């Protein structure tokens, strides 16, 4: 396969910790690019070339899919049928060559935290071949009731405002909640209690354990002017310095963006509901109204493969169209 102009190849060096290299790969869903990290090498391809990819290269010992920002209940012109586009995302997940073992939903499940909105999403996700869904809350899921409805449904095994961790095939997953108790003028926030828990949670793990952090609001400063960042994320990432492979999966900004910094690879997933503008490219981060025939090309899912032994994740963002 010949290298394209927008393809980025990145050598992870396998040292993991103090590498000074820096890669910033902004893969806008609208411009059609996605990144794959496999065996410590991150590659970025144009999304329009997804069909050319050899599915056997996407295989690992663990694979899962990420969906985000289904915003069930939204019904404005940007997308009057968010249930339909979520269903399309599930169909796409079910059609993947490597069936994902579980789903991650990185928040804004609902639009207004209403029981029927949560019900609707749960019902649609029941048609996914993967039965386990791991959620973290978005700010829309905790609005009006400080997260009561969300935590009753999805917080049974979590702590505090909805944080928890679990292990799958040697990978340590940490779901963080950074949408509660937001302060005027502020960004996403994890809070002291959650940070303390995170420090204790990862302390006993060996440095070779691959870590996947997932949370709704990006754990890196995408665009603080629009609130696209988390005020205390640096502290959280500070607890993960010893690990060779850390992957951060977020939603919230309704577009695909990727960045590698040190031992950490950051990804944001597209929304299954409606696209939002690139940072600073509009007066506000409101929904982008695009022609109906374009909409599905701006929505998506993220399929993640973990290759055991190589301590790296391969992430493929695909559009719904």
């Amino acid at each position, binding site marked *: 396969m010949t290298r394209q102009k927008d393809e980025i190849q990145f050598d992870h060096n396998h040292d993991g910790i103090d590498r000074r290299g820096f890669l910033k790969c902004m893969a806008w869903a609208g411009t059609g690019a996605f990144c794959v990290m496999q065996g410590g090498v991150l590659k970025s391809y144009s999304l329009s070339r997804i069909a050319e990819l050899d599915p056997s290269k996407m295989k690992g010992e663990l694979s899962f899919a990420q969906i985000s920002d289904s915003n069930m209940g939204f019904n404005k012109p940007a997308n009057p049928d968010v249930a339909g586009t979520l269903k399309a995302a599930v169909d796409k997940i079910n059609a993947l060559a490597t069936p994902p073992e579980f789903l991650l939903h990185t928040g804004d499940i609902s639009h*207004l935290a209403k029981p029927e909105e949560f019900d609707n999403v749960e019902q649609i996700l029941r048609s996914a071949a993967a039965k386990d869904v791991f959620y973290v809350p978005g700010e829309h899921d905790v*609005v009006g009731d400080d997260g009561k409805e969300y935590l009753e449904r999805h917080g049974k095994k979590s702590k505090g405002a909805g944080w928890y961790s679990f292990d799958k095939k040697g990978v340590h997953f940490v779901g963080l909640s950074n949408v509660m108790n937001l302060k*005027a003028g502020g960004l996403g926030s994890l809070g002291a209690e959650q940070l303390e828990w995170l420090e204790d949670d990862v302390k006993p793990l060996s440095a070779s354990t691959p870590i996947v952090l997932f949370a709704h609001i990006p754990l890196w400063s995408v665009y603080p002017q629009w609130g696209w960042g988390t005020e205390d994320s640096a502290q959280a990432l500070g607890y993960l310095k010893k690990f060779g492979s850390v992957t951060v999966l977020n939603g919230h900004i309704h577009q695909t963006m990727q960045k590698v910094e040190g031992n950490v690879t950051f990804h944001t997933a597209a929304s299954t509901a409606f696209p939002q503008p690139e940072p600073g490219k509009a007066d506000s981060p409101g929904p982008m109204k695009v022609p109906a025939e374009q909409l599905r090309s701006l929505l998506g899912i993220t399929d993640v493969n973990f290759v055991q032994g190589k301590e790296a994740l391969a992430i493929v963002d695909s559009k719904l169209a």
Partner: protein
Amino acid sequence: MDRNKRYLAGAMLVVGMAGAFAGATSPPNGTPAQAAASDEVKIDNFTFAPGEITVAKGTTVKWVNRDDIPHTVVSDDKSTFKSKPLDTDDKFSYTFTKEGTYSYFCSIHPKMTAKVVVK
């Protein structure tokens, strides 16, 4: 989908009513003979407009969400006033009975901040 839409319409109606009644819990302390002034703040494009208004004591300020995204109106202390989530065209009102500067924000999008000055 039709059933979903009906669900949603019902849900939005409930929110709208809750928003409209919220202001009624804070009656003005001014003399009844004095007609309370009213000022409206529009929420649109992730902005409260005007971002700062000055009103007389006893004024009922009304907020209306003209954006296609839900917002809230919450005082910085999160207790003086706090609207329900306001979907498109939902309203909230609060009567300011004491002098002072009331900073508030949208708890969904905390970068949205504004203030009401009561004299």
